[in-house]
């Protein structure tokens, strides 16, 4: 495919070539051939760059990951690969750190995604009213999206600090004892989820808002003629109307949650970062992958974790599909 497209491209005049007005050249047979080549080949040439880069830097690495995971490879000697078949997988299966990281990834994934999307739905509903300063509110809800993981995690790490953090101070003013946000498992996972929720709620709200605005107004009119309350209109018109967008955001958030890395790394403040806390209490699969490869120098094991993450994603979507099937059968 690629060779024929490059020929088609080479056969074309370079842009800004001979400044003839078109028409003359197309009359001659050679011109006609060029024209045919152009019409047939150009579209492939136009989409080729995307596929070439994707194949080289995304698809090939993904496939090659599975091959590396069957070997022992040290970080210092990347060119020496020793075949160990499925040893890495067997070890991973018996490694409590893996199950811990898997569990953390799932729990943080749930407590960051569910409230995030619920809040985004509510925010989108509010933004959908006609009001003054609507642009200000939209841009304001996007401010967290403009903040990098690194900056956001640093700020929230400080806000959740045990001794002088703002949250514990606020809890103290209403008589609640300070929480050890970093050292205790659940508080740590809640704090990390807060960073994720803060960064992505506004962005998801805008996706929902766009979908809400595509719902024809007459559906609301019909519903209110039928005597539906505001709340019933929301549940019976708005939610079904943006269902596919909701599915889409769930997919995106799931992929994001599986790969959670920056937030827990920075929340752990340096020495505790890669291990996800002193007792791995918030180590995610992403952190484990990094720790195996770049701290323990075992690239083969790192690739095994990556492949396990991929399988996890596939599994999640298969389960999701199954649930959908069962639902549609029962309803």
């Amino acid at each position, binding site marked *: 495919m690629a060779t024929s497209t490059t020929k088609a491209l080479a056969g074309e005049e370079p842009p800004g070539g001979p400044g003839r007005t078109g028409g003359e050249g197309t009359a001659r047979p050679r011109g006609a051939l060029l024209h045919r080549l152009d019409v047939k080949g150009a579209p492939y040439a136009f989409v080729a760059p995307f596929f070439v880069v994707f194949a080289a830097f995304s698809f090939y690495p993904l496939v*090659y990951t599975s091959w590396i995971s069957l070997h022992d490879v040290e970080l210092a000697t990347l060119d020496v690969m020793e075949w160990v078949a499925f040893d890495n997988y067997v070890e991973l299966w018996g490694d409590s750190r893996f199950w811990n990281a898997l569990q953390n990834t799932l729990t943080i994934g749930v407590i960051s995604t569910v409230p995030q999307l619920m809040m985004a739905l509510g925010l989108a509903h509010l933004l959908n009213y006609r009001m003054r300063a609507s642009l200000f509110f939209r841009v304001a809800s996007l401010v967290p999206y403009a903040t990098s993981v690194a900056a956001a995690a640093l700020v929230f790490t400080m806000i959740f600090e045990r001794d002088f953090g703002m949250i514990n101070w606020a809890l103290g003013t209403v008589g609640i004892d300070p929480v050890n946000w970093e050292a205790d498992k659940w508080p740590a996972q809640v704090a990390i989820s807060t960073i994720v929720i803060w960064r992505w709620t506004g962005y998801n709200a805008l996706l929902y808002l766009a979908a809400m605005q595509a719902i024809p107004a007459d559906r609301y009119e019909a519903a209110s003629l039928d005597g539906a309350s505001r709340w019933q209109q929301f549940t019976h018109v708005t939610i079904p109307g943006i269902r596919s967008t909701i599915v889409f955001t769930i997919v995106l958030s799931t992929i994001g949650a599986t790969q959670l890395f920056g937030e827990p790394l920075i929340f752990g403040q340096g020495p505790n970062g890669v291990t996800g806390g002193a007792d791995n209490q918030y180590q995610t699969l992403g952190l484990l992958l990094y720790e195996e490869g770049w701290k323990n120098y075992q690239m083969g094991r790192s690739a095994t974790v990556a492949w396990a993450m991929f399988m996890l994603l596939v599994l999640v979507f298969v389960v999701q599909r199954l649930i959908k099937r069962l639902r549609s059968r029962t309803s």
Partner: protein
Amino acid sequence: MTTHSLPVRTDAPDRTPTEKPAGRGGRRLLRQRAGRQHHAGPLAYVLLAVMALLSIFPLYWTMVAASTDNTRVSQTPPPFLPGPNLFSNLARAWDEAAMGKAMVNSLIVAGVIALSTVMFATLAGFAFAKLRFKGRNALLMLVIGTMMVPPQLGVVPLFMMMSELGWSQQLPAVIFPTLVSAVGVFFMRQYLSEALPDELVEAGRVDGAHSLRIFWSIVLPVARPAMAVLFMITFVHAWNDFFWPFVVLDMTNPTVPVALTQLSAGYVRDQSLIMAGALLGTLPLLLMFIVFGRQIVSGIMAGAVKG
């Protein structure tokens, strides 16, 4: 997965036959009339104000913490008003965290990635929107499918590739894997199928212009607003990208987010300095959002066609 955010209608469409059916998922970058006509009541305003406050407060507080000194930051109650040391702390962060170099690096990385993403996305988007070729739909499906592949999973071989190419710790290692974006291709396709009349392309053909010429003189002028939006959104993502730059770059040659991790890596933490660094790293994007907020909002909303 459906590929457009318009709900899939199973019932009969309630449009009058005279109305033109909307293009499949097509969406203008214009602000549309909201689907509901309700005006916001006082409660809605209060809730929105709270949301806005929650969104903005952490950044405001970053500024406060960056403008005091360590002893003040670590007292209770925490400070809520800016102190006098903002510029001295910013200057320290600039020097100590290699922030200056990191800024230049991030500017190069995000700029190149945004430019190439826009260029290739417009080319491919034009082909998918307006040109007829064998396998078009299958290829488009493939593009959408690639959105589902998390790039991080290939990080180990990618790291090997980069060290083989001699690009470890170099900017090309960060730039090359993200030269294109599936979301970008899809976004441009949606925009061009709406905004670019078939007649224009046909007219170019009749005049004997070849495809590249048509792209250059006909498609680009029409695509310009969408290209600007895509450029900004891609720039934001590239500037904030963390995992891969963190893996492949080191502290001698960091991007901004990587440099920020350096600030907090030690046992002794200089909170004001860390916050000054966080503020520095966020400022360029904040300015962009303040100036082009409207375009970025409408761009993200137009991109919502993705689902």
